[in-house]
Structures are given as structure tokens and as C-alpha cells.
């Protein structure tokens, strides 16, 4: 066995060019796979973290029927107890309460459907950073009676500017229609067109007063230290308060779940394709190498080395090269990803120049988890070894007498 090992080692170095090509091919395959995983993970984190924080928070609590029915009377019970419980959780970063009702907005120019959100202006800005998205006017101006904030596109459609009035019409808890006039305080922009066209914000106490005799809340939005804590905290809250419905962002947004899962699926399909390309490249190179070494292998067989050992020799050589290639590949990928994490990968260089127009951030910061690293590395090594089997088997088919004469 040691002899075989020694022989394999020497063979690897006898033709450095060939070994180097094989080694580099494996390293490159691994680098490519890891980079792809890291970029797609980075994209996910980047594209969605902001969206999650602004739109869904990490965790939301509603009346159990509110999300499906959206009825005004399905407001949150035991709000004080909920808030008290939350304050005691170590993961809590921020939380805010909202009043939600669907209604109609009217200006002299247009009537449209809107989602009306009653918010606590101070708490809201800390959770969703609503004030940072303003493009016109002021954030819910306390000096105005009944201030309202709306999407820039909606304001454009309604043809209203800050200081002008609109009328909101909605149903209160007694199912009576209420109309009230609001003064436009400012407009905000959003990545989501639907949101910019159909959402308005008003102070919670104003909306609440129109809806019911006492203050009511429909939604409790919570930011935690880390998005991944959402599900765990939601489960704990659900246990403590079975009368409400607590959902983490993953369950709140089927779209995000879709994009996350679809992105994962596509990444693994593409890694599969890269592995296939790698396997075929290796297979062909090794096959060529075996043909080139026909004479040498024939000689070994002729002087009495048995076929099992020749097979072992070739497999061992592949193993040595694969292992060093994998090591080099991981190193290369880590260095590259580290560098990109500092500099950012500019996707606009790959033909996405127009992306900024759509509000996409084209600079991607790759992220690589240790699980993914291990999985990709194992897959690459396995692929390389599988690809080495056929040429080794081919070498066994050699006829010593003919091979030597070659």
C-alpha cells in the first residue's frame, strides 16, 4: 500500500503540467460552485432584509381572523399584556402598533381604493423607517389637523400636493360608513408599485377615534435582533397568548418565501450543471491521460503488477489531485468571497446597467455559510472521484502485449 502511495505520488509529479490542469479544473469547479452559492445567498439577504424590516417586520401579531377577513372589528385583544410580555423578551429590538382599515380615497380628480394605516408616528419610524422614504413634504406633521401620508404615485393620480385635502371613506366597528377629510402632509416612495399606489398613513389616534369609542389596534409589528429569531419568538408568543395569531415574516409573505425557495432551487440546479461540466472535463482529461500513458501502464502490467493495483494506482492519483484541488479551490473561493464581501460584486457589469432605474441595488455582498461550504466541497470531491472511475476502468482493459508495443 505504501509502495502504491509512493508510486502515485511520484506519478503526480512526473507530469506536472497534466496534474496542474486537473488540479486547477477541480479548484475552479469548487470556486465556481461556492461563489455561486455565496452570491445568491448574499442577494437574498440584501434584497430582502430591507424589505422584511420595512414591510413585514420580523414578527406580526393579529386577531386570528384579521389576515383573512380584514374586518375592522377583528382587533387585537389584550394589547397591554402583549406589550408587557414583549418587553421582557431579550430578542426584542422595537415594536409598534397599527390600526388597519380598507377604504376609499377621494380627491376632486379621482376615487380610488386604499389601505389606511393608523400608526404611532414616533414608534413607526423606528420600526419601518417610514420617514426615510419621504420624497415630498413632511412626515405626519403634528401641526396639521388630520395629517395624511401617501405614496407618491397615489398623490400624482389624485393630483394633490402637500397642504391639499382628500376625503377618506371607510366602515367603522358598528359597520356605519364614515367619511373624514385629511390634509396631505407628505408623500413617500416605495420599491413596490402597489404600495405606492394604494397605501396611506394617518396618526393612529385620529383613525381610532373615527372607528370606535376606545383605542383599537389590529397589528403588532415587532423587530428582533435577528430575522432568524422570528419563528422561535412567534412560537413562544403563540403559546403565551393562544387568543391571537403570531406569524414570523416567512409565513407572512408567501412572495418572499417563493423567492427564497425558488432562488435556492435554482442555485442548486446551477451547481448541478457546473458539477456536470466539471465531471465531463475531468473525465475527458483523464481519459486522454490514460491513452497517453498506454505504454507506461502496459509496461507495469507486463512486469507483473496486477490489474487491481493498476486500478488502485490510477484512483489514488486522482484522489491526491482531487484533494489538493479541493483544498486550493476552497482557499481560492474564501479569498475571493472575502474580497468581494469588502468590495461588493457589481452585477451591472454583467449587463444589468438598467437595474438602478428599477430601484435595484446592483452591488451584491456575497455571504457563505459553513454548511453550504461543506456541501459544495463534498459534492465536488465526489464528482471528481466518480469522473476518475471510468478512465481507471478503461486502463484495466489494456492488453499488456499490445500496450507495450504502442
Amino acid at each position, binding site marked *: 500500500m505504501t509502495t502504491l502511495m509512493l508510486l502515485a505520488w511520484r506519478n503526480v509529479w512526473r507530469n506536472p503540467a497534466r496534474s496542474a490542469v486537473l488540479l486547477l479544473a477541480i479548484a475552479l469547479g469548487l470556486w465556481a460552485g461556492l461563489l455561486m452559492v455565496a452570491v445568491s445567498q448574499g442577494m437574498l439577504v440584501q434584497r430582502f432584509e430591507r424589505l422584511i424590516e420595512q414591510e413585514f417586520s420580523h414578527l406580526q401579531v393579529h386577531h386570528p381572523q384579521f389576515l383573512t377577513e380584514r374586518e375592522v372589528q377583528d382587533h387585537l385583544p389584550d394589547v397591554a399584556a402583549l406589550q408587557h410580555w414583549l418587553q421582557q423578551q431579550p430578542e426584542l429590538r422595537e415594536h409598534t402598533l397599527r390600526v388597519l382599515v380598507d377604504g376609499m380615497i377621494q380627491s376632486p380628480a379621482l376615487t380610488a381604493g386604499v389601505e389606511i394605516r393608523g400608526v404611532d408616528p414616533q414608534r413607526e419610524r423606528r420600526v419601518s423607517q417610514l420617514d426615510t422614504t419621504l420624497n415630498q413634504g413632511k412626515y405626519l406633521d403634528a401641526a396639521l389637523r388630520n395629517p395624511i401620508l401617501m405614496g407618491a404615485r397615489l398623490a400624482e393620480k389624485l393630483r394633490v400636493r402637500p397642504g391639499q385635502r382628500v376625503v377618506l371613506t371607510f366602515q367603522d366597528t358598528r359597520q356605519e360608513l364614515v367619511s373624514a377629510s385629511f390634509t396631505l402632509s407628505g408623500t413617500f416612495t416605495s420599491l413596490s408599485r402597489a404600495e405606492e399606489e394604494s397605501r396611506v398613513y394617518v396618526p393612529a389616534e385620529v383613525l381610532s377615534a373615527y372607528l370606535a369609542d376606545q383605542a383599537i389596534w389590529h397589528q403588532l409589528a415587532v423587530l428582533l435582533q435577528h430575522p432568524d429569531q422570528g419563528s422561535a419568538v412567534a412560537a413562544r408568543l403563540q403559546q403565551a397568548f393562544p387568543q391571537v395569531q403570531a406569524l414570523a415574516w416567512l409565513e407572512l409573505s408567501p412572495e418572499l418565501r417563493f423567492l427564497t425557495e425558488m432562488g435556492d432551487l435554482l442555485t442548486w440546479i446551477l451547481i448541478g*450543471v457546473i458539477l456536470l461540466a466539471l465531471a465531463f472535463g475531468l473525465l475527458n*482529461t483523464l481519459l486522454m491521460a490514460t491513452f497517453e500513458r498506454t505504454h507506461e501502464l502496459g509496461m507495469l502490467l507486463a512486469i507483473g503488477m496486477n490489474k487491481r493495483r493498476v486500478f488502485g494506482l490510477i484512483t489514488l492519483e486522482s484522489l491526491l489531485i482531487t484533494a489538493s484541488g479541493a483544498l486550493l479551490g476552497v482557499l481560492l473561493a474564501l479569498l475571493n468571497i472575502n474580497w468581494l464581501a469588502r468590495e461588493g460584486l457589481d452585477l451591472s457589469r454583467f449587463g444589468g446597467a438598467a437595474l438602478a432605474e428599477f430601484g435595484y441595488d446592483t452591488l451584491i455582498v456575497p455571504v457563505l455559510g459553513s454548511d453550504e461550504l461543506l456541501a459544495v466541497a463534498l459534492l465536488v470531491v465526489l464528482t471528481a472521484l466518480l469522473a476518475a472511475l471510468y478512465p481507471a476502468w478503461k486502463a484495466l482493459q489494456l492488453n499488456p502485449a499490445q500496450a507495450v508495443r504502442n
Partner: protein
Amino acid sequence: MLYLSLAWRNLWRNARRTLITLASIAFAVVLALWVSSMNRGSHQLMVDNLSRFHTGFIQLQEPAWLDEPSLDHTLTYDPALQQQLLADTRLDYLVPRLETFMLAGGAEQVRGAMVLGVDAAAEQQLNGLQERLIAGEFFQPGDGRAVLTEGLARRLQLTVGDELVLLGQGRFASSAAGLFEVAGVVRHPLRELDNQLVYLSLPDAQWLLSAEQQVSTLLLTPHQLQQTDALVSSLRQSLDAQRHRVVPWQELMPEVLGAIQFDLAQQNFVLGTLYMVIGFGLFGTILMMTLERTREFGVLISLGMQRYRLSLVLLLETLMLTLLGVLAGCLPGWLLLRHFHHNPIQLGGDMAQVFEDMGMGLEPILPFALDADLFITQGLVLFVLSFLICLYPVLRVLRLDLMTAARS
């Protein structure tokens, strides 16, 4: 000519070697085709699905509608316009819609609702709306009945046979109010619409809103998605821009176009990585081939063959090899894509549920496009790539050390 036949013979002198190299190139072509076809396919499906359920492929609007989508800016939809449009053979059919926002009420509940006056047969052709009925039936034109989406019906607590009150504003600030019998309930795949749509027949809606012969938007469906751009530009030429605005899906759903652009940039990055892996695999094969033939080159040069002539022969070999390889990859590539084009990958189980939950009306499949330009682009890129790599032996011959070559 001599060089040509020399090169050709060299290729087939060691057929096994040539076949391996050919296979390398062909395989690369197939993989690159597969990846780009999957990408293209999913984009086309996304555009198709979303256009059908959302905005249509091309819309005809009154120019002011964009800034102010109110009933005061509607389009006159008469047989003359219909005839003029349908004269273009690329256009399949027209889907007229008259939309406005009104209050919808049942016995107890009142909600804001989007009222859509439609031609039920045309909608059926566009998105199979009638198959989404979960109760009752569709109205006949002008029979004074309405169809509700499931979410709205539940909120208004209405079922088939109940009465629906619609209250709002008609054209030129006239008041509009009407009583309609609920004929059916449909489940709309777009969740945000499922909670707020009321369908009326077009004549009923036009009567209710005092908007005879008027439509808000006219959706134009081309025979093929790829014809959209050409159709839009010829419509823009033939129609009076003062009266008709032609808007393609790219402008109607800019966020979808943005998502596609983003995807494409990512795809190019992936393809770049793939080319690199493929290129290196091919380089390995070529390097082994060159090593194997070093002695042959040495002997030829020793015998007096000039280096540049040998290089020329090798260059021709390379050209033939890469050309053959790319062509050889296109056929299995085409067969593979055709197979996947007709049998897209079905996403089952969890993924199908995720698609359903998202409520955007997307089918849970990974479709593949079968477009000629994919073959041209990928074939060309891989031809250039393989050609550059296969230049290695040519360069090698120019700088070959005779003594070591002959001894190897």
C-alpha cells in the same frame, strides 16, 4: 487544399482522440443551452401568466388615462376601431374593459370594490376566467347580473342569488347607483384582486356609469408573445397618438421587467462561471492531446516541415474541430430543449404549495424556451471560447524544442 486534407486526415487518424474533444465541446454547448433556455423559459412564462391575469400584453388607452385613470378619460370603442385594429394579422383578439372604483354593499357589509365591465367571452379567451367559477355561472351581456370574486363575496357575506348594491361616480361626475343580482363567484389567482373585484357585463357597466361605447382600456393579445414589440411599434405608427396611447407590458409592469433584467444579469454571471469551468475542462483535454502528439510534431519538424506550415495545418484542425463540436452540440441540445419545452419540469409538493400561496397565478413549473437566437448566441460564444483554447497546440508548435520533443 493540401493543408485542408492533411488537417482532415489528422483529425481522423486518431478518431478516439478527436471524438473525445468533440464530445467536450458539444457537451459544453448543450449545458450552456440548457441553462439559458431555462432562464428564458421562466421569464416568458412569468410575463405570459402575469399579463393574462393582470394587465394584458398590450393596452390601448386614452392618453390622459395614464396620469389620471378616471372615467373622464375613456376610449371610444366602436366597430370602426375594432376593424382597424383587427386588420393586423399579428393581432389575435381584443379584450375591452371598463373599470372604476365604487362602494359595493350587501345586506350588512359595505366595501370598496373595483368594478370591471368585461366581455366575458374575451376574458375567457385571455385567462380562462370562467373555469375559475366556484359557484353559479357567468352573466349574459346586459342581463343585469354580476360576478364577484371569492374574497369580496365572503366579506360582503353574499352568495349566488343575493342582491349587490353598487354606489359611486359615473362619467363626468354623474352619480351612479345600481342593483345587481349575484350570478356567480370566481376565485381570482391574484390575491389582492380576489378581495375586491366585481365583474359586470360591459353593456351593464357602460349603462351604470353613463359611459356608452366607452372602455377604460382595450387589451390587445398578439398571436405570439415575441410579436409584442413589433406590433406595438406598428400600432404607434398607424394610430393617432393624440387619441390613442399604446402601452406594452414592459411599461405596464415595470417591476416585472426589472426582475427579469436582474435575473439576466445574474444569469450572465452564472454563464460566465460555467464557461470558465467548461473552458478549463476543454483545455485539459487539449493539453493531453498536445502532450500525446509532441513526438509527432518533433519528427515532422525534424524532417523539414516548416513550423508555420505545421501550425497552419493545426490551425485548420482546430477550426474544423471546434466547428464540428459546436454543430454536434446543437443537435442534442435542440432535442433536449425540445423535450423540456414540451415537458417542463413539474415542481411538486412543497414548491407547488409555495407557488399557490403566493397567489400570483404562476404555474408551478420550470419551463424551457426553444428560441433560435439561444442557439446562435451560445453556439457563437462557445465557438470563440473553444477556438481560443484549441489554439494551444498551434502556439506550442511554434516554440517546440526539437530535441526534447523527439526524445519524449
